[in-house]
C-alpha cells in the first residue's frame, strides 16, 4: 500500500487477555519500528527490526511484550496478560534503511485495557 497500515485502529480488551496488533509497512522498507505513546506523552521506543538482523528489543517494557516480523514485511506486536497500564496508542513506523533515514508512521492502534 501507499502508507503504513495498522490494525485494528482501536482495541478494547479485558485485563489479563492477550492482544495482537498488526503493522503492514510501506513496500520495500527494510526497517520497522514499534513505539508506545501514553496519553499526552512522547513516544517510547519498543522494538526495531532491520532486514534479517536480530531485532533490537531493548525498549520492550516486560516479557509480556513480544513482536515478530514475518518475511521481512508484516509485523505483529503481542501483549500477553494485558494490564491497565498497557493502555496507550501503539504506533508503527517503517523506513528505508539509508543514511538520514526518515520514518513513516501508521495511524496507530489505540489499546484500552479495562
Amino acid at each position, binding site marked *: 500500500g501507499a502508507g503504513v497500515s495498522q490494525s485494528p485502529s482501536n482495541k478494547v480488551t479485558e485485563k489479563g487477555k492477550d492482544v495482537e496488533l498488526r503493522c503492514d509497512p510501506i513496500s520495500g522498507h527494510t526497517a520497522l519500528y514499534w513505539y508506545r505513546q501514553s496519553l499526552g506523552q512522547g513516544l517510547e*521506543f519498543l522494538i526495531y527490526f532491520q532486514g534479517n538482523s536480530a531485532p533490537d528489543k531493548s525498549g520492550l517494557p516486560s516479557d509480556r511484550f513480544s513482536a515478530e516480523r514475518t518475511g521481512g514485511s508484516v509485523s505483529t506486536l503481542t501483549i500477553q496478560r494485558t494490564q491497565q497500564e498497557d493502555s496507550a496508542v501503539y504506533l508503527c513506523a517503517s523506513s528505508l534503511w539509508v*543514511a538520514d533515514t526518515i520514518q513513516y508512521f501508521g495511524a496507530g492502534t489505540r489499546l484500552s485495557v479495562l
Partner: protein
Amino acid sequence: SQQGEEDPQALSIQEGENATMNCSYKTSINNLQWYRQNSGRGLVHLILIRSNEREKHSGRLRVTLDTSKKSSSLLITASRAADTASYFCATTYNTDKLIFGTGTRLQVFP
C-alpha cells in the same frame, strides 16, 4: 529515558503569529528531525537537519541546530489554525532508532 526535552510543553498563539519550539538533547547526534502529530495519532515528518548543518528552511518552517549547546529550535512563521498539533524532535546517533522528545502542544487560534 527520552533523549530530547522540549520547551515549552504547550504554546497558544493567534493566527499570523510565529511559533517557536525548542528541543534539547543529551548525547551526540547524526541528525535531528522534527515531526508533527495531529490528534494523538500518526506522526508526519517535517524536516531533517544534519549534525554539520546549522539552519534549514522548508516553506514556513525554519530549523536551527546548535550542537555545542545540544539544542534545536523549530520556528513556524505566519501560523495558521491548521498548524495546531503536537510537535516532536527526534534524534539518531549511529543507528536508525529515533529517540523522541517529550513534545510541544501548539494551539493556533483563528
